[in-house]
Every structure is written in C-alpha cells, then in structure tokens.
C-alpha cells in the first residue's frame, strides 16, 4: 500500500500547473470555470480557441499511443493533468469526445488511413466530434438503433435520427452507429460510420432541458453522406466497435470531476454557515455525509486508477458512474434543503422579471449555480447509462448474476 505520488509525478504536475496558470491567468482568463455539464452554451467561441491552444501545447492525446500521435503518458499522469486542470478552473472541454472516445477507437480499430486523416486534427484541437449513439427509440438499448445507412456509389447514405448528442451544433464530425443491413436485427448488421456534420442532409435541433438551457441536441439525417471507407471496423461490425469505444474512457478525468464536486460542496457548506442552516443537526449530518461520500469517491477513484495503471480496469470500476451520479443528485437536493425557502429564488434576486425576455417565450429563467446543480443533476442518473442500467451491468458483469430474460 503506497498512496503517494512519485517525484516524477510531482515534476509533471508542476509543469502542467505552470502552463495552466499562465494561460488561465492570461489570454484565456475569461474562460475560467465556463462550460461543462449544464453550461455547454457558455463562451463557445472562446472555448474552441482554447481547444486549439491545448492542442498546440501538446496537452491533447496525453494517453494515446505514441504511434497514434499521442504522448503515451501513464494513466497517473493523465490523472494529474485533469486534477490540475480542475484546480485551475479550466473551461469545460469541448474536445473531450474526440480525444477520449473516438481517437482511441480509431487508434485501436481504425485503418492507417483513418488514423492519418483524423488523429492529427484532433490532437491539434481543430476538429471536434460528437457521438451518434442514442435514438428516440433506443436510449439505453443501443441494439435497438434504427438509423439506416445504405451504400451507393461509394458513399454511405444515412437516414434517421439521433438524440442526446452533446456539441452537435459545433462539431465537425460525428461517429454514428447505424444499421447497414436492413434485414438485420438487434446487435447484428450495425456499422460505425464517421460522418461529416457540415453538409446538407443533417439538421441539428437543440433540446431545451429543465434548466431552460440546451445541453443536448437532436440530429436528423436525411440523405447525409460519408465516403465508403469512413467505416471503423468492418461493415456489420459496429456493435463491437461501439462497445470498444465505451471502454476507452479510463476514468482519468474522474479526479478532476471530483475537484468540481468539492467546489460545489464547499459552496453549500458556506451557504449553511451563512444562513444558519448548520444549526440544524439533520442538515449538519447530511453535509458531513456528503463530505464523507466525496472522500470515499476519491478513494475509490485512486484505487481504480492505481489498478488501471497496471492494465485492465478492475470490475470495481463498473460502479463509478452509479456512485457519482447518485452522490451528485443527492448533493443537489441537499443544497436546496440548506437554502430552505430561499432555494426557490433565482439568480436575479433583487431585480424584476425582464418583461421582454419573458415575452420572448420561455420566460427569463436565470438560475443560481446551486439551482443549476439541483436541476441538472437529475440528468446525471439518466444519461450515459441510467442508474438502472448501471445496476444491471454490475449485477451481471461484476457479480456474475444470470441475465434477466
């Protein structure tokens, strides 16, 4: 048992910190703390520039194999990067999906031509990707995908609809799981296509969510095309490729995420001290319990990462989504209970409702950060595998219980 970082780790951390401090204290100062879950609408142009700055400085693809143009850094160094990134209040990473999902997939299963075409642009922070998995009729059930692609004259022609697609409006590319064998069902006959987003035949419609902002999009394909060779793996092999993509997220960003959680918790603690909610023994214990839950989350993450650094992630890693989503949702509820009746009152307290904004439809709906946490965290237990799906996965994969029929 040795839970210290090495001297080499510490040196790497210092390098990261120095660079981030310089950038986020300078040119990109206005981006500090912007973007991220629930805030993807903020400072989009600035954050696109930031992606290019990260790429130029070599901070994209830290964990990719060197052969694929990455730096091949060990998992713990990636973790350190994310920790420092969070501590420096780095803006929400628009490039996350390309860097951490698509790129490793192409590196592992793509052709050499695909690697040459796509990886450098991702590493430079120049091309952005979004993920085309979910559909209105296939949320948790990827095998229920109905978007179709037909091969004609050297191009795949796509028809169908994807949903819950983050960054669709600003992405250059989308990796799309779709049905290329019309007679197939379920897992068979799916393919994994790389589709340019900026073309006729693709319509993106933002989905307004309960926070009033639009975090996700619907993407409609109606005759959209991509070249025949923009398929990862063989046609019909899309299920396997799609599943592989899901395993590439090694959790390196987990500790960074937790630094964000810690900041939220600190804000709630401060609110409780300020409004006297901490005089209530029940709230005190819930606050302490939230703190305990966050420590345990950190210890879980360290354990998984320390293990993962030596190879495959252990079966215990299957619980991390369920854990943080449940914790964070409860934190949102705790925040509201700490604020008491004032929890209702929105951001522009002290100001009248703006009648013009209200007339514009949707009403002026400006939430406080804790209200946003409360509302947006309802999605945490739904997206990227709902709590129910996570428990199914733990039961069958970690515990070996027989699949339900």
């Amino acid at each position, binding site marked *: 048992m040795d839970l210290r970082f090495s001297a080499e780790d510490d040196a790497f951390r210092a390098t990261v910190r120095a660079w981030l401090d310089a950038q986020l204290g300078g040119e990109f100062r206005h981006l500090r703390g912007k973007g991220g879950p629930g805030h993807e609408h903020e400072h989009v142009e600035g954050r696109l520039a930031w992606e290019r700055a990260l790429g130029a400085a070599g901070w994209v693809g830290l964990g990719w194999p060197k052969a694929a143009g990455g730096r091949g850094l060990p998992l713990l160094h990636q973790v350190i990067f994310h920790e420092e990134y969070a501590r420096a209040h780095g803006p929400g990473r628009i490039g996350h999906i390309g860097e951490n999902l698509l790129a490793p997939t192409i590196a592992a299963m793509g052709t050499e031509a695909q690697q040459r075409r796509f990886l450098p642009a991702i590493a430079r922070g120049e091309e952005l990707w979004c993920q085309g998995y*979910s559909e209105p*009729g*296939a*949320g*948790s*059930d990827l*095998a*229920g995908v109905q978007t179709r692609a037909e091969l004609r004259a050297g191009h795949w022609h796509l028809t169908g609809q994807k*949903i*819950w697609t983050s960054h669709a409006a600003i992405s250059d590319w989308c990796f799309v799981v779709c049905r290329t064998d019309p007679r197939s069902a*379920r897992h068979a006959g799916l393919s994994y296509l790389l589709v340019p987003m900026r073309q006729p035949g693709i319509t993106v419609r933002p*989905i*307004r*969510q*309960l926070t*009033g902002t639009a975090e*996700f999009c619907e993407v409609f394909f109606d005759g959209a095309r991509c070249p025949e060779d923009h398929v990862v793996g063989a046609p019909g092999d899309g299920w396997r490729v799609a599943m592989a993509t899901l395993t590439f997220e090694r959790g390196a960003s987990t500790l960074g995420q937790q630094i964000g959680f810690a900041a939220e918790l600190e804000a709630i603690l401060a609110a409780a001290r300020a409004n006297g909610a901490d005089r*209530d023994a*029940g709230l005190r214990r819930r606050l302490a319990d939230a703190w305990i839950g966050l420590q345990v989350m950190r210890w879980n993450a360290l354990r998984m990462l320390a293990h993962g650094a030596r190879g495959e992630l252990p079966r215990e890693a299957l619980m991390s989504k369920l854990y943080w989503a449940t914790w964070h949702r409860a934190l949102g509820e705790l925040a*509201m*209970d700490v604020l*008491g*009746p004032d*929890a*209702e*009152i*929105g*951001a*522009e*307290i002290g*100001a*009248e*409702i703006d*009648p013009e*904004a*209200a*007339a514009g*439809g*949707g*009403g*002026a*709906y*400006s*939430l406080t950060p804790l*209200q946003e946490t*409360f*509302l947006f965290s*309802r*999605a945490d*237990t*739904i*997206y990227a595998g*709902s*709590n*129910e799906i996570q*428990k199914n996965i733990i039961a069958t994969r970690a515990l070996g219980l027989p699949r*339900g029929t």
Partner: protein
Amino acid sequence: MRFAFSDEQDELRRAVRRAVEARGGARAAREVVDAGGDHDAALWRTLAHDLGLAGLIAPEAHGGAGLGWVEVVAVQQELGAALAATPWFATVALAGAALRVAADDAQAAALWPALARGARTATLAPGAGVAARATPRGVTLAGVARHVVDGHTAGLLIIEAHDDAGEPALFAVDGDAPGVRRRRLPTMDRTRALAEVTLDEVEVPARARLARAGRAGRAAIDHALALARIALAAEQLGAAQRCLDLSVDYAKVRHQFGRPIGSFQAIQHACAELFVLVESARSAVYFAGWSADHAPDTLADVSAATAAYCGDASYRCAADTIQLHGGIGFTWEHDAHLYFKRARASRALLGAPDAHRDAIAARLGLGADHVAREGAT
C-alpha cells in the same frame, strides 16, 4: 363510516377537473410560465365566476357556499393535478383559512363578499418579518414578508405582524394601501408566484386586526396554517397522482430491449413504491380534511403529519417521474419538470417536512427538557 367524498363532493371535484382539462391541464400552467405571466386568467374566471368556487368556504350570509375543508381538499386535489396557476389557493386556502379562523362577524361581513364574488383576490403572509406598533390612530405595520404566495397581485393581504412583546396577530391590509411595496420574486417553480411584500410604515385602523373572540393571536395563526397545510397537501396529492399516472402510462408504451419498460422489475417496483406513497397521501389528506371540519382537538397533529407525509411523497413522486421517463423526462417540453419544480417549492412552503416532524416530536414530549439537560451538562 364513509371514508370517501360524498356524491356532492365528488361532483364538485369532477367539475373542477372538467374545468382544468378544458384548459388543457398542465399545458395552461406551461403557457403561463412561458409567457412569464402571473395566472391563468381564463381558468380563474371559470373557477370563480362560472363555478362560484371563490366563495366555496365563505359563509352563506356573505355570498359564499358555506362549505368546509373536505370540499377544499376536493378542489385542491384537481388544481394540483393540473398545476393550475390561479389565485384560488392563496385566496381561499390561505387568506380564506385565516378569515374562517380569526375574522369576527364585522370583519367577515366586510371582507368576504368581494372575495366570494371573485372580485378580489387575497393571500396570507405568515412569519415574523413584520412589526405592529400601536398608534393613536390605529396600528402601524413595518417590515418585510417574503415568499408570499401571489403577494404582488392579491387585492387583500392578511399579514402576520408582531407587537413589541412579540405577540403575533393577523391584519387585513389592502394590497394597494400607501406604503405597501410588492415585487414578484424570480422562482424556480414558475407555476406559483411568490412575492416580497414590504410594508413601509403602513397605517391601518385598529379594526384591521382580525379579532374573533377567543381565536386570535398565535393559536389562530397556527389553526389557519394547519388548515392551509391540508389544502397544500391535497394539491400535492393531486400532483403526485398525476406523476404516477404519467409514469405508469409511459412505462406501458415505452419499449427498450424489445419490451415495454413497465415489464422490468426495476420499473415495476419503483412504480409500486410511488403507488404506496400516493394512496397513503390520499388517506392522510382525506382524513385531515375531515378532521379540519369535525375534529379540531387533533387537527394540529393531523395536519402536521399530513403535511410531512405529503411533502415528501409528492417530491419523491415527481423526482422519480423524471427518472422513470429517462431522457425525455429531463426536457423542457415534457411536463415532468413542472411537477418536479412545483413539488420542491411546495415542500418548502408553509414549513418543511422536518419542521413538521419537529412540531410533532415536541407534542410527543420528546426533547422537552432538552435545554434544561443541555444546561446541566
């Protein structure tokens, strides 16, 4: 023994349901929200004028129907199911409760007729934020009442104010009286307006103090709040039932993995747990409504128990409704978030569940010598 609405009470309930459904149910509330408006004026017209419900509990002598809290429960249940954005709750269940409990005959005669006709709306502003100072001409009120339901639109404000000795009383104040400043607060739940009411040395005559013999001061306010909480619980019941209905209906039609999600045990058990909450809330609300009219001795406990139970139950139903709907339940387009936000706001209105539990604990003699013992250690 009959533990259900009478035929007349049920017809009242159905009439309200028809009225809210004619307005499209929760769609009407959504329109109010999207327009940044205060109320669904059309629905209010139907309730107040066509159905005469503004005078539901007003004495017949003052133009009302003279009915009781079981009828309030019947109405509120349906208004809650549709998240109806009307002045009914504040006017009848809040201010009306206060008048019922604390107004003497002259005050009732002066205040009820306009309310009963639906010509004037009203609200109640409980709390310790306003001071009452006796003057030669009457009473001067000064202070701020926050989170007042419909406080910026109500024609009549019933305001709790405390004298120098800390004794509280209720005062009837015209919403437009000189020195009254009011503004709507920006709330997360936009289907029920909350306002801040500032009283800047507002002078009222002595007769503005509600003073029914033997039913004034703390006891009257507590009694009025006990009634108001039952009305709120009825609204929560209606909303919780609607959430369960939405969830069950969706679980029957939404397919994943080749079968309706309602055939998965995880979904079934979640719905079953909500069913227990909803039906238990119904028993509580009906019993509490009956107690309000027939069992005043136990009303405080019954109301607190009902408020605690329904506050938590309705929040849980609304929260789980989002989860049971998956992604779609998280969108602005779907009604789930409107119920969720209302449930959260209502759970903090008129006292949080834990505050009701504390009140019951005190009545059970728990922690009675808390301070004494703390001092001794």
